């Protein structure tokens, strides 16, 4: 075996810049190889191009791993860079000799150019003689997990860059783990910057051994190692003469040859109905994209959740009927019988069905800055279904450094969002149990990347907040009868509010509270109550004075309770002589209620839900104003949050004092 005899540390004179002479003729590969055919027989070329297959891959690595340079190299060496783009990049490279920085070819948005980093997932396209390629380019910085998960979700191949000088780092392991979690079947480990390690086989072999040891627990079908220099172009598109000891494929060679058809699940027929096409009474077609498996005309099918069966009468396309169709084609199915079937239903074969379940376990990637709120109902989008879902339990959170599951401790305080205990935040990955309001038709993600995947949407902000992969274990199967019964009832869950207190607070910008005005008859409680209501309303708050209907203590308490739960600033000015009565109302409101139906604590805001204001007007004045009223037995409050001598101040000062107390208690967001 020949060893490379290049000196070990050979820094490029241009740093990360690639020295490509200004007038270099087009390189190998891509269209260049086919140039002759294009020139001589364009129609033959088009026939050939038509037969190409599609491969999606994702390149992962951190800012300094040379990822952009690798993508730039692939595009450049396959001759996919247009002259004017090249000219623009040459200008932007700003190098005296007119050479170019290949990493700039994949640079996108203005904001990123300013920061010198890519901030999101970008897609690039190139084609060679045998395939069309879609590259998901994901950046390697703080928001990495979210971006990588996005790019990896549809990829057939992941390319992970390992710096030959640094070996297998924590981040290489993390990226591989995520690629494996997302079900990418093939992994290519590009050991990059081999030029800086003298193209040493020992270095390469050591990295391969190290990586292989770590990757044993991962789910890839195969892992391939290639020694490369993206900067110099070694073994990317062109085989390098400096790595004679390496007998494997180049990166592009691997991408061209890796079989993708075999990765498609063609055994389990799953057809989520997307759209019902009914142009007239004689035609009733069910449109969808085949998620997996194959279907033939005449096959027996079953519709979920109804369980009704029929046979395929026709597989329609615009170009005519098909005898047979397979994933991922978009078709229209017609059945022999008129059976009920609508969007969200799934057509399957009776002897090969998915699991029907409302409760299941999943690996959940949190994608949003706003952390998971376990009290809140989210929307889950799974195939063509969209239903309400709640996260019952977070079992564990993945420690991205050690790649081990850490138990998730959720305290009451954490549930209400006020403590620093465990939260599921942006870029976190956790194992969770979810319960949907009606059944989904699911397969484990490891068996089916379509029927095993879902996203979570925050219905208040309409943002995509999570991405999930259904696990094999932890599925609570249901019978079709059960599922149907629940669908007819509208939901399988015990009826309960789908709006959490935190959501209410976010919508209203305030938390519900009862402001209880205590005072003698004639003290001016009611005038103060209505003036306060007006003032709060003018301030953009939602306030309401509870008026007497039946003035028993219970009916007053429940009225105050209902308005406070609804998120209103509830103003009560009822006569309440006794300390014990007021304590009763205070206890009723403050008590953090336990909702036994879901066995979780409902955050009701604790002590800030009751504020007592003592309207301490001079008793002599009160008597003068209300000679008819009863004054004996009044117990002045001991623990009022505020005392107002209403006869010694102007009304607006009294109101301002109350508003100040409310602000201090954190009842409002500042406007």
């Amino acid at each position, binding site marked *: 075996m020949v060893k490379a005899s290049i000196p070990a540390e050979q820094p490029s004179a241009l740093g990360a810049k690639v020295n490509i002479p200004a007038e270099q003729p087009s390189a190998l590969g891509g269209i260049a190889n086919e140039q002759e055919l294009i020139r001589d027989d364009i129609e033959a070329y088009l026939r050939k191009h038509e037969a190409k297959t599609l491969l999606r891959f994702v390149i992962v690595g951190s800012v300094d791993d040379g990822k952009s340079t690798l993508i730039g190299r692939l595009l450049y060496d396959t001759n996919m860079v247009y002259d004017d783009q090249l000219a623009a990049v040459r200008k932007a490279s700003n190098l005296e000799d007119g050479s170019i920085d290949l990493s700039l070819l994949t640079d996108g948005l203005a904001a990123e150019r300013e920061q010198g980093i890519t901030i999101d997932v970008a897609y690039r396209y190139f084609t060679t003689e045998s395939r069309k390629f879609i590259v998901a380019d994901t950046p390697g910085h703080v928001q990495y997990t979210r971006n990588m998960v996005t790019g990896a979700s549809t990829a057939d191949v992941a390319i992970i860059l390992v710096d030959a000088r640094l070996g297998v780092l924590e981040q290489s392991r993390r990226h591989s783990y995520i690629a494996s979690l997302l079900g990418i079947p093939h992994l290519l480990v590009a050991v990059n910057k081999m030029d800086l390690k003298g193209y040493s086989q020992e270095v390469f072999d050591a990295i391969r051994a190290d990586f292989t040891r770590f990757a044993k627990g991962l789910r890839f079908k195969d892992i391939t190692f290639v020694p490369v220099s993206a900067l110099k172009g070694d073994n990317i598109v062109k085989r390098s003469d400096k790595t004679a000891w390496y007998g494997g494929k180049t990166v592009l060679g691997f991408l061209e040859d890796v079989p993708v058809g075999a990765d498609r699940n063609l055994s389990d027929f799953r057809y989520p109905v997307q759209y019902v096409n009914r142009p007239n009474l004689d035609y009733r077609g069910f449109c969808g994209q085949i998620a997996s498996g194959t279907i033939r005309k005449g096959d027996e099918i079953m519709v979920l959740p109804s369980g009704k069966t029929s046979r395929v009468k026709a597989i329609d396309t615009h170009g005519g009927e098909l005898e047979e169709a397979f994933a991922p084609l978009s078709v229209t199915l017609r059945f022999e019988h008129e059976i009920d079937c609508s969007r969200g239903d799934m057509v399957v074969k009776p002897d090969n069905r998915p699991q029907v379940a409302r409760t299941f376990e999943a690996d959940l990637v949190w994608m949003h800055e706003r952390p998971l709120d376990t009290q809140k109902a989210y929307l889950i989008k*799974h195939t063509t279904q969209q239903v309400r879902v709640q996260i019952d339990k977070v079992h564990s959170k993945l420690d991205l450094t050690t790649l081990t599951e850490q138990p998730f401790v959720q305290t009451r305080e954490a549930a209400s969002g006020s403590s620093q205990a465990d939260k599921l935040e942006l870029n976190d990955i956790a194992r969770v149990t979810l319960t949907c309001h009606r059944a989904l038709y699911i397969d484990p993600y490891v068996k089916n990347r379509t029927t095993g995947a879902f996203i979570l949407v925050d219905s208040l902000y309409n943002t995509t907040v999570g991405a999930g992969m259904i696990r094999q274990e932890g599925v609570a199967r249901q019978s079709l009868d059960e599922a149907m019964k629940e669908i007819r009832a509208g939901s399988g869950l015990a009826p309960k509010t789908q709006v959490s207190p935190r959501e209410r607070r976010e919508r209203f910008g305030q938390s519900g509270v009862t402001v209880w005005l205590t005072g003698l008859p004639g003290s001016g409680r009611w005038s103060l109550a209505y003036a306060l209501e007006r003032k709060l309303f003018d301030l953009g708050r939602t306030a309401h004075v509870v008026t007497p209907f039946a003035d028993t203590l219970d009916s007053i308490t429940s009225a105050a309770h209902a308005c406070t739960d609804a998120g209103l600033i509830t103003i009560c000015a009822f006569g309440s002589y006794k300390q014990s009565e007021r304590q009763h109302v205070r206890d009723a409101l403050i008590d953090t209620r336990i909702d036994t139906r879901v066995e979780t604590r409902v955050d009701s805001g604790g002590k800030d839900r009751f504020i007592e204001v003592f309207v301490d007007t001079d008793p002599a004045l009160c008597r003068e104003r209300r000679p008819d009223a009863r004054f004996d037995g009044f117990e002045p409050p001991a623990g009022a949050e505020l005392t107002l001598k209403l006869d010694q101040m102007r009304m607006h000062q009294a109101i301002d004092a109350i508003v100040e107390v409310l602000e201090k208690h954190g009842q409002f967001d500042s406007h």
Partner: protein
Amino acid sequence: MPIDQQRLTHLKQLEAESIQIIREVASEFDKPVMLYSIGKDSSVLVRLAIKAFAPAKVPFPLMHIDTTWKFREMIQFRDEFCKANHLDLIVHTNPEGLRENINPFDHGSEKYTDVMKTQALKQALSKYAFDAAFGGARRDEEKSRAKERVFSFRDKFHQWDPKNQRPELWNLYNTKINKGESIRVFPLSNWTELDVWQYVYLEGIPIVPLYLAKQRPVVEREGTLIMVDDDRMRFLPGETPELRMVRFRTLGCYPLSGAIESTADTLPKVIQEMLLTRMSERQGRLIDHDQDASMEKKKREGYF
């Protein structure tokens, strides 16, 4: 042939994915519209919509933003194409722009594009309260498009925030919006220029004849060939139109879309020329050259 050996060609796969996107919009939105620019990408987009809903007719209208400066051949093609395919067509022109006679000669390409295209589009989307609008943009067209989502969220002012995009995973698209907000949908995101041409060729999709080379009257201005389409053309001193064999790589408004010299008078020859010349497609469109990162700026403001 056993099914697992059947080759799924890249075009079949792209077609299936685009149809899935189009059907998803028709299912999830109340009032979708397909923006129709009359160009080749629009032709492919409409063909995919027809395929998605056959044998029914396309369940949403097409809308063309007419700047009144389109090539005459484009307008003729538009009307015939829509009629032949039983498509509902809405044509909208910015009435204020029309009243003030905003044109590319007096007002410059930037202002003209803003008033007659961007503002006109926003007007029309608001007027009809469309909640989803299909466009034919592709990610390979231009660098800032490479990060565009398939479902691209716009606020109630029709603006795009590149830093606040929804992540897109698998083929699961988040279609939730509030009233007044909208989504721009790009079913051709993953198609390349070559894919579009190949599909036009394979499917025999009609395109505007301007794409094919022919003797046409042009003047050369700042290295760009401007076709003289009607008597509104304003000549600079010393300019006289001459007949040259030209065609268009992209179609827009005639004073702004540059022609290229070419002998490619059939579709395969056009594809051949495109593959051999290797120049970026939007180079012929003057509007993108106004300022650096101009496309991104336009998109933020509401341009497609």
